[in-house]
C-alpha cells in the first residue's frame, strides 16, 4: 500500500462529493452532515476491526450480528436488570469481545476455517440478540442518546469523536508498533512468520477479539443513535465493512491494508449512499451502483498492486 494508493482513494472521494454537489442542490447542507455523522461511527469502528482481521489473513462475517448482540445485551442490562448506563455499555462491549474470542479460539487455535466459524457466529449472535431483547426493539430512553447527539453546536457527537480517535489509534498501531508488524507478517506469510518467532494463532486470535470488541462498541453506538436496542440492527454490515476495507486498499488475501484507507472507504460508501438517496435514486438502483463501485475498487487495486 503505497502513498499513491491512498491518494487515489482520496481523489475518488472528492470526485464523488463534487459530483453530488453539482447534481443535488441540497447536498451541501446540514442535513447531509448530520446524517453522515449519525451513520458513520458504527460502520467506522467495525471497518477498523475488519481491516485488521483481513490483513492478518482471516475474515470476520459475524460483525453485524455481534453489533446487534451487544445492543441487545445493553438493552437487557438497562431494561431488565436496571444497571447504570456505563456498566451496561461495558457489558455489551465485553459480550462482543467474547464473541470475537470464540471466533479466535475456534478459527486460530483449533484451525477451523474462519469463514465458516464466523458464518456460524453470524447466526448464533443474531439468535442471542433476539433472545436478549425477546425479539422486540427495547426502548432505552434519552440518556443513552447523549453519546450520539452532537455536542453543543459543533455538530460532532461523542460517538463520532470516539470513532475518529480509534481510526487514528489503530492506524498508528498497524503502521508503527511491533503488534502491527506482526499482523502484517502473519497475513503475508504465516510459515515465515512462525519461523520469525511470531505465534500466528495468538496474533489472529487477538485480532478477532479486537474485531469483536469494536463490533460491541458499534452496538453501543447503534443503540444510542436509535435510543433503543434493535435486534435487527446491523444486518449486512459485514459486507459494508469488507467493502470499505477493500476500497481503502486492504487485500482480501492478507498482508496488506491500512486503517486510514479503510476510513476513506467508509466515507466513500456512506457519501455514496446519502448522495444517491438525495438525487432520488431508488433503493434497488442504489445497491447496483454501490456493488459496482466495490468491484471497480478491486479492479483499481489489482492495477496498482499486481
Amino acid at each position, binding site marked *: 500500500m503505497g502513498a499513491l494508493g491512498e491518494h487515489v482513494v482520496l481523489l475518488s472521494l472528492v470526485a464523488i462529493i463534487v459530483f453530488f454537489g453539482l447534481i443535488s442542490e441540497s447536498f451541501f447542507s446540514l442535513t447531509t452532515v448530520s446524517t453522515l455523522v449519525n451513520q458513520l461511527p458504527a460502520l467506522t469502528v467495525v471497518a477498523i476491526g475488519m481491516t485488521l482481521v483481513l490483513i492478518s489473513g482471516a475474515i470476520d462475517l459475524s460483525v453485524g450480528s455481534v453489533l446487534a448482540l451487544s445492543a441487545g445485551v445493553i438493552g437487557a442490562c438497562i431494561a431488565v436488570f436496571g444497571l447504570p448506563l456505563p456498566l451496561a455499555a461495558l457489558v455489551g462491549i465485553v459480550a462482543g469481545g467474547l464473541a470475537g474470542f470464540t471466533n479466535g479460539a475456534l478459527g486460530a487455535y483449533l484451525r477451523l476455517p474462519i469463514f465458516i466459524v464466523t458464518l456460524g457466529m453470524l447466526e448464533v449472535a443474531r439468535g442471542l440478540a433476539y433472545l436478549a431483547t425477546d425479539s422486540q426493539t427495547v426502548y432505552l430512553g434519552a440518556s443513552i442518546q447523549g453519546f450520539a447527539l452532537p455536542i453543543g453546536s459543533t455538530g460532532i457527537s461523542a460517538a463520532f469523536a470516539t470513532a475518529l480517535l480509534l481510526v487514528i489509534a489503530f492506524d498508528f498501531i498497524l503502521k*508503527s*508498533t*511491533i*503488534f502491527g*508488524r*506482526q499482523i*502484517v*507478517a502473519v497475513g*503475508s*506469510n504465516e*510459515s*515465515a*512468520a*512462525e*519461523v*520469525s*518467532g*511470531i*505465534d500466528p494463532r495468538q496474533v489472529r486470535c487477538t485480532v478477532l477479539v479486537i474485531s469483536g470488541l469494536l463490533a460491541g462498541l458499534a452496538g453501543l453506538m447503534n443503540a444510542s443513535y436509535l435510543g433503543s436496542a434493535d435486534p435487527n440492527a446491523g444486518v449486512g454490515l459485514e459486507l459494508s465493512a469488507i467493502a470499505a476495507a477493500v476500497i481503502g486498499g486492504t487485500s482480501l488475501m492478507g*498482508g*496488506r491494508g491500512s486503517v486510514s484507507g479503510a476510513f476513506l472507504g467508509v466515507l466513500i460508501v456512506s457519501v455514496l449512499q446519502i448522495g444517491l438517496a438525495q438525487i432520488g435514486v431508488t433503493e434497488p438502483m442504489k445497491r447496483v451502483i454501490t456493488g459496482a463501485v466495490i468491484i471497480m475498487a478491486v479492479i483499481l487495486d489489482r492495477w496498482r498492486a499486481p
Partner: protein
Amino acid sequence: MRIVAEGICKSFSNQVLHEVDLAIPAGSIHGLVGENGAGKSTLAKIIAGLMQADAGTLHLDDAPYSPPSAAEALRAGVAICTQELSLVDDLSVSDNILLATSTVKLARIDRRAADARASTLLDLVGLRDVAPRTRVRSLSLAEKQLVEIAKVLATDAKLLILDEPTSALTGPQADRLHAILRDRAIAGACVIYISHRLSDVLDICDEVTVLRDGRVRLALPSERLDEKTLIREMAGADADFNARRRTSKQLADARLTVENLRTAALSHPISFACKRGEILGIAGLAGAGRSELLRTVFGLDRRIGGSVRIDADGIATEVRTPRQAIRCGAGFVAEDRAGDGVFPAQALKFNITVAGLGRIADRAGRLVRSQERSAVLKLLKDLRVKSDGVDQKMRELSGGNQQKSLLARWLHCESRLLLLDEPTRGIDVAAKLAVHEELVRLRDAGMSIVAVSSEVEELQSLCDRILVLSKGKLVAEFQPGNWSQEAILAAAFSEYVQEPQGLKQAHGSA
C-alpha cells in the same frame, strides 16, 4: 515397447540435464540412480510428458515421441508414478484409479465395474484389507504409495516409470512390487525404476544407468555392477577439498546440545552438539530426516522425546518453540525460501527486522523508523546485498540476495547459532561463493552454524565436521581428515542398502 532417448537437455536456472542418452529394450527393467539433484526425476518427468526437454529426441518403438502433456504420454502408453503422490485425498481409492484411466469425460460411471477393477488392483499390490470405497485421506503413507502404484498399473501402459516407488514401503511390500514389475516386463513392457535402494536396483534391474550432475556416467548390465561401483560413480572422483581446509579456533564448550531427540521422521534417538565457532554439516539423502532434524531443533516440528538445549549467556536453556529458540540466540533459514522464509510482498526492511522487532522499538513497543533504517542499511552493506534500498520489495531481489537478507534477519537479532537448511539452494555459483564466504567469516567471529546440504562437496568445503543421517538415523560422523565423498555417500545409503533382500523368496513362492 522400446524407448530410446538421445541428447536430452534441460535447464531451469542452471542446466540439470546435459545430452543424456538412454536406450531401453522391450521387456526390460532399467534402473536409474544418482545423488539428489543428479537429474533422475527431471529425466523421468520429460519422458512422461510432465516437462518438455530443451533439446534432444525421444523415440517409442522407432516412432518419434515428444509428449506435450502427461495425458498425451498416457495415450502413447507411458505412465509415471512420481515421487510426489498425485492422489485426490477426498475421493475414494476406486475413484482415484478411475480418474487415472478413464478417457471419456461424460460417460456415466459404472460404479460396480470400477470397484471390481480397483479391488483386483488392490489385491495385486497387496492391499487386500483396503475397500475400494475407502477415502484416500484415511490411508497411511505406505498405503497411499501402493494406491499410486495401483493407479499406474491400471493404465496398462507399456512403459512404466516409477520414481522412488518404495520410499515408504516395507521390505515385503517392496518385494511384491518388484515381482509385479518382473511380470510386466516378461509380458513385454518396459520399466524405468528410480530408487535410492541400490541393492533393490541391482536385484531387479537388467541394466542400470548412473547419472551425475545431469550427465550419464555409466550404463551397464546389473551383473557387471555392485553397490560400491554405483556409489563411486554417483559421487565422482574425489576432489582434494581437504587441502583447502582452514584452521579454525574452536572453543570447547557446546552452544547447541541435542540429546536423544526423537520425532515422527527420526526413528532413532539422535544426540549431537555444535560448538562455538564451528560449522557442523549434516549430510544425507532426501527424506533421510535432515530438514526435520533442523526444524525440530528450532521448535517448529513436534518432538516425541529428548532434549534440545541452547547456551544463552552461559546457561544451557531447554527450547521448545521458535520464540524460545530465538530468545536463546538461534536463527533458522528454511529450505523452502518462498514458503518458510521471505515475505515476498513486503519491503526489505520488514523482512530483515521481523524476527527482532524489539531491537528497533522503544519500551512502549513503538517502532523507531530511523533506528530501523540505519540497522538495515548497515546489514545490507555488511552482507553486500544488492538492492535499491531498504524499501524495495523482497520479491524483486535475486535468489542469492534474498538468501543473504535471510541471514541478515538473524544477524539483526545477533543470533549466535544459525540452523541453515540448504543455504545455497537455487542460487548461482557466484552468490553461492559469497554466502560461503560470509558463513566462514561469521564462524571465525564465533558463530555456531549447523548446515544441511544435499551437496557433499559443499559440506566438505564449508564444514568443520559432518554428520550423516540415513533413513532417520544418525549413522556416521566425519572429521576433515577422514572424509571422502565416497565414504559420506556410502554412509548416507547405509540404512537403505541393508533392506532385507527377500525378492528371490517372493519369486519362489509366487
